[in-house]
């Protein structure tokens, strides 16, 4: 009995010292998308600041494939020693296991911190007759299926936003998927579709140049980057859909390490330089602690599961 408690205490001490010294060697930061893309840029803006916080080098490793599945699976199956961290993307991290027989489960990843977000939004070309979302909805009610809405792909936050909106407004929209934000934006600029659902950050540069008009954004509150764009909520449509990026660790990592990493990320999120750079990239910094992030993920996961069970979107 005594021996056992000595063993337990010494193990605890070892574990405590192990995590107290973390990190002792370089870390690997997994990005589930290719180099040069939005998530990659977020990671690379984060990287030098995180290195300063942790005192160890952080190497960004891209693991693209299967719409983010490969990268998230790589994070989920990595050694839970705290030296492999990854950027987690919402909604992909949640929707991929729901929509197909994926190679990872949501429970295999520990949410560490929420970092940045970019709400989905619906925009029209500047030459479009629709000045407000209400006008578009009214037209769609009169002419079911006439309004074509381009999105960034099947199963993306933008696609889900369109589905939610159509359900809320009781209209029929024709969904036209494209191979990502770039092609969707090009189609919008060329007026090949009547409207497009893109993230606010994707649409804003064109909006600033007067080429598109953002009718509404699907965030929970007004965006500090575009305060004049109304939220769908404020217009009476109960739709909230954002693209979020945060950090995650594989399940099984020592909670002390999780806390330490979350703290480091919080410091980065408060850094002026980080906030400014993200604003230049049209993303909002919105830090969430490990517990908040985990709770958020749980509720989102339940929502998506319900939506999928009711009407599968692919």
């Amino acid at each position, binding site marked *: 009995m005594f021996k056992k408690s000595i063993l337990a205490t010494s193990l605890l001490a070892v574990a405590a010292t192990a995590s107290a010294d973390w990190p002792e*060697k*370089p870390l*690997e930061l997994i990005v589930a998308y290719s180099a040069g893309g939005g998530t990659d840029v977020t990671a690379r803006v984060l990287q030098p600041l995180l290195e300063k916080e942790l005192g160890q080098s952080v*190497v960004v*490793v891209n693991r693209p494939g299967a719409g983010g599945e490969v990268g998230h699976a790589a994070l989920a199956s990595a050694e839970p020693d705290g030296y492999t961290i990854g950027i987690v993307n919402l909604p992909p991290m949640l929707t991929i296991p729901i929509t197909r027989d994926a190679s990872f489960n949501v429970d295999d990843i520990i949410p560490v911190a929420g970092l940045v977000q970019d709400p989905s939004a619906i925009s029209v070309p500047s030459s479009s007759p629709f000045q407000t979302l209400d006008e578009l909805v009214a037209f769609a009610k009169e002419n079911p299926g006439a309004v074509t809405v381009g999105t960034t792909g099947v199963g993306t936050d933008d696609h889900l936003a369109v589905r939610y909106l159509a359900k809320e407004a009781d209209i029929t929209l024709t969904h036209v998927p494209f191979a990502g934000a770039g092609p969707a934006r090009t189609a919008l600029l060329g007026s090949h579709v009547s409207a497009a659902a893109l993230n606010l950050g994707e649409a804003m540069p064109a909006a600033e140049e007067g080429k598109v008009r953002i009718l509404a954004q699907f965030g929970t509150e007004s965006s500090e980057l575009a305060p004049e764009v109304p939220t769908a909520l404020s217009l009476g449509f109960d739709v909230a859909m954002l693209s979020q990026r945060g950090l995650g660790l594989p399940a099984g990592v020592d909670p002390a390490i999780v806390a330490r990493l979350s703290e480091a990320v919080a410091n980065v999120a408060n850094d002026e330089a980080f906030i400014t750079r993200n604003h230049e990239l049209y993303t909002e910094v919105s830090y969430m602690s490990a517990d908040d992030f985990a709770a958020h993920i749980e509720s989102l996961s339940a929502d998506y599961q319900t939506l999928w069970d009711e009407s599968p979107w692919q």
Partner: protein
Amino acid sequence: MIAFSAISAINQILRTRDSARTSEASLIHGLAGLALLGLFVASASAMGFLTSALWFLPAMAMLGGERHGWRVVLITLLFTLLAWLLFHLVFAQSMPPEFIFGEVR
């Protein structure tokens, strides 16, 4: 339809294999080379690319008819060193852990 195309393609290949008069490798050399390459890839995931190169280069050189043993060894070592410099130092990539160089981050 895919099945049909696949079957007809395979049929075509089998039928014309013997009458091929292209400048490709002969069947023996080609198959042996491919087999070696397969072994190389398998060993690379276990032992690392560069460690595997140490046995792969001499093996394939022998297949290609190289006689001068010392030249083979010299070039193999030189190549492996250059490749190591290129991929690990210059590119700082993480690779499958090298047997001889230890875990690379």
